[in-house]
């Protein structure tokens, strides 16, 4: 999340005095023999917009369903506001969930769908219509109040589901792939709307998505999962800039990965041998790596420069041949094949018109990067 300079930075996870709203303590969930969630520990703080990211089947929905109360925990405990919620049934939790399938009641109108939870709450009857009206305004569906779910479009249904889950002003709102069914433009609009709503209502959001761009856009923190485990939990910029593993680096955005071996160490600067006859890569890495450790060198394509002449101002320069150019409008990605067959992607902003481009297929070029542009990853 972009933070204006004068506002205090929202980072309760760095403040030891803050109590998390949700705590997963060594939570394991099994379905029969299958381990869906594997010894997972996680803190989520109030007012966070927390994104769960991971490939299909990694346990995101299961995690949400445990929070909502539809799956019990096999081992470990989940605390909400410091209280173990294992014995609290779903209808008694201050948690609302927006289902992946929306789960709108087909026999009720849009307005009655939104009012459903309110009618089951302690809210006085006469206050309900006003709250429904407010929710309809929030998701821009005032004109559709009396339609049935099958009479509105997919995008509108998704908004009804969102309004319905927000209506009770829950402490915690769970969104399971809320925008999966939307096309790109509508999805982006809704992402900003979600952030806006979160800002207005102060609700804590946990959102599941398999779209990493979406996670980066909306979230205060992103958790990358794989096979029921948390691989990394961090702010979007840190997830992107300092992934802790090859898995995360590869999962989030585009990356060049070069497998190699640490040659010599001098403080936190390393030389990486990575192929016969190729100059070693010099890169900064974590302190104290020993010589001979095998590692991956990871570098984002936009941090790789491409030029016809060998640059003199960068510590790493590798020669190769342009294999392919992917034109993406605002940027172009050059796929450069090095002498040993390794392909390095370099992304260049298209500041000039395409016809003025000075490099083309089969040109011999140099790709280069500074020693702090990439990362040394051990796992």
């Amino acid at each position: 999340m972009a933070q204006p300079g004068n506002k205090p930075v929202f980072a309760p996870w760095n403040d030891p005095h803050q109590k998390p709203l949700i705590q997963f303590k060594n939570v394991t969930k099994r379905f029969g023999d299958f381990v869906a969630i594997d010894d997972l520990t996680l803190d989520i703080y109030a007012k966070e917009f927390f994104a769960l990211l991971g490939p299909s089947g990694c346990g995101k929905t299961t995690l949400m369903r445990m929070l909502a109360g539809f799956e019990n925990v096999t081992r470990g405990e989940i605390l909400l506001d410091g209280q173990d919620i294992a014995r609290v049934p779903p209808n008694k939790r201050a948690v609302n969930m927006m289902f992946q399938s929306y789960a709108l009641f087909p026999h009720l109108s849009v307005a009655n769908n939104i009012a459903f939870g309110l009618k089951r709450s302690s809210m006085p009857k006469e206050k309900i219509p006003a709250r429904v009206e407010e929710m309809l305004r929030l998701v821009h569906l005032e004109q559709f109040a009396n339609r049935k779910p099958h009479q509105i479009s997919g995008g509108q249904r998704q908004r009804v589901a969102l309004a319905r889950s927000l209506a009770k002003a829950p402490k915690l709102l769970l969104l399971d792939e809320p925008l999966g069914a939307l096309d790109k433009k509508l999805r982006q609009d809704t992402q900003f709307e979600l952030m806006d709503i979160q800002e207005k209502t102060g609700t804590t959001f946990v959102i599941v998505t398999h779209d990493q761009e979406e996670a980066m856009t909306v979230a205060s923190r992103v958790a990358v999962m794989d096979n029921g485990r948390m691989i990394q939990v961090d702010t979007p910029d840190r997830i992107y800039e300092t992934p802790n593993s090859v898995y995360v680096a590869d999962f989030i955005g585009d990356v060049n990965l070069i497998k190699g071996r640490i040659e010599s160490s001098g403080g936190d600067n390393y030389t990486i041998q990575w192929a016969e006859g190729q100059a070693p890569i010099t890169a900064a890495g974590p302190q104290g790596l020993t010589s001979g450790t095998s590692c991956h060198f990871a570098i984002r394509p936009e941090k790789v420069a491409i030029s016809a002449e060998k640059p003199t101002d960068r510590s790493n320069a590798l020669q190769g041949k342009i294999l392919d150019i992917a034109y993406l409008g605002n940027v172009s990605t050059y796929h450069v094949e090095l002498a040993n067959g390794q392909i390095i992607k370099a992304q260049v902003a298209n500041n000039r018109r395409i016809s003025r481009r000075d490099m083309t297929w089969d040109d011999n070029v140099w790709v280069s990067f500074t020693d702090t542009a990439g990362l040394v990853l051990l796992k």
Partner: protein
Amino acid sequence: MNFRRLFLIATPYFWLLALFLIPFLIVLKISLSDPAVSIPPYTPTLDLSAGWGSIKTFFTELDFENFIFLTEDALYWKAYLSSLQIAAISTFLALLVGYPIAYAMAQASDSWRPTLMMLVILPFWTSFLIRVYAWIGILSNEGFLNQLLQWIGLINEPLTILNTNAAVYIGIIYTYLPFMVLPIYSALEKMDESLIEAAEDLGCSRLSAFWLVTFPLSRPGMIAGCFLVFIPALGEFVIPSLLGGSGTLMIGKVLWEEFFNNRDWPVASAVAVVLLLILIIPIILFQRNEQKQREADQ
């Protein structure tokens, strides 16, 4: 339009014509004639081989006196009313019995469902008549039910169930239960389970989630099931005549007696035509329910 398509479209209409409309017209024709001691036992008969003259006399001699007769004898309207009542009550009871069965089937795991479905349909594998006779063995004074109840010690004297309306209700519910269970089951089965979870998530208990979500969503299935039980139960003849007593008045039985005991075909036909007219209303309502359901599914 080519020949094949014409054929495809015409075939169902042909069967409808041959199996429904023509028999109905024959019955209608008989209902408009007079009884006679002859074979067949009514006049005028339509003798097409005798040419135009015969057709003309046939039409001039038709009258509505059999229908007027139905209104004069209280037996008939009482039998219609009693049939409606018995059919309505049995339909309601079948709903009470059938809904939990359908619900349990829909809740069962995927591997069990085909077996349960099979069990519901299984009775159709034996003759309906034999199954109704079997109920005589169960319900009679010395029957299994009374033996069981006496053995448990619940009663000292055997209960008289056979040859009462109670036996008719039992027979109708038993016979038509699958027609109630299957449509309700199909409505429940296609319901998205996450709807119940959503209801609970929004503050419903299990029970109120059922009342507010499951029950209204299974209504089309219940309506279909009720019609499927009510319509055949209304004209039911075998069950009241085998299980019912002398006090059981049902129009199907009256119809049978008119035909075979009194050999009064014209009045019997009039009874049948009126029964059909009564049934048309629920049949049309049923079709509209189905239609609405199809539209909602889209």
